[in-house]
């Protein structure tokens, strides 16, 4: 049973399309995150949710909209995809205080 699972693993789509990435965790953790890793491997936080409530919303285009239907799920919807959105998107969770992140396996998004 995967602790933090993301779907899909790969996503290739055309500019202008709308797509969603889903994340589910079975760890019982309260906090979930979306991070973006670009082609230079730079990992940057996008959003954070704690028990379904938005906690962190970094400077991200409003084409990106996270949704947390319950504590175990955090989805990311992206409208009007652009070439610059191509990256690997990681979901992550934290549970016990000061015990590090558990990352999902990532979704490689390629916009053509």
């Amino acid at each position, binding site marked *: 049973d995967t602790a933090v699972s993301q779907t899909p693993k790969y996503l290739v789509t055309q500019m202008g399309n709308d797509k969603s990435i889903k994340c589910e965790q079975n760890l019982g953790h309260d*906090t979930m995150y979306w991070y973006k890793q670009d082609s230079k*491997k*730079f*990992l*940057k*936080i996008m959003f*954070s949710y704690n028990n379904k409530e938005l*906690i*962190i919303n970094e400077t991200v285009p409003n084409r990106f909209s996270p949704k947390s239907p319950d504590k175990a799920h955090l989805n990311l919807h992206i409208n009007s995809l652009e070439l610059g959105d191509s990256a690997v998107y*990681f979901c992550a969770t*934290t549970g016990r*205080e*000061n*015990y*590090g*992140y*558990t*990352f*999902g*396996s*990532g979704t490689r998004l390629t916009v053509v």
Partner: protein
Amino acid sequence: QQPVQSPQAVILREGEDAVINCSSSKALYSVHWYRQKHGEAPVFLMILLKGGEQKGHDKISASFNEKKQQSSLYLTASQLSYSGTYFCGTDLFGNEKLTFGTGTRLTIIP
């Protein structure tokens, strides 16, 4: 602001030791360390907290100099499995919002 890691890349033979450094321009609450293998997700290694507390794996050690806002990760007697990119993540306020460093690519050769 993104923490700076050094070196950017290092190549070692099996059995050799490595030190990876992470420097921040801001006062830190904690420093995390992660290892990412090619095509995989980052994996948590260790957290160092203000005040000296550490939590992590037995075979990896690290230090945290609060005055200098620096942390170092020590990998001793390196194994092939240690290869990957190492990231530090800094937490300024104890809210576990991490800013990740520039990364250090470690290659271990037989």
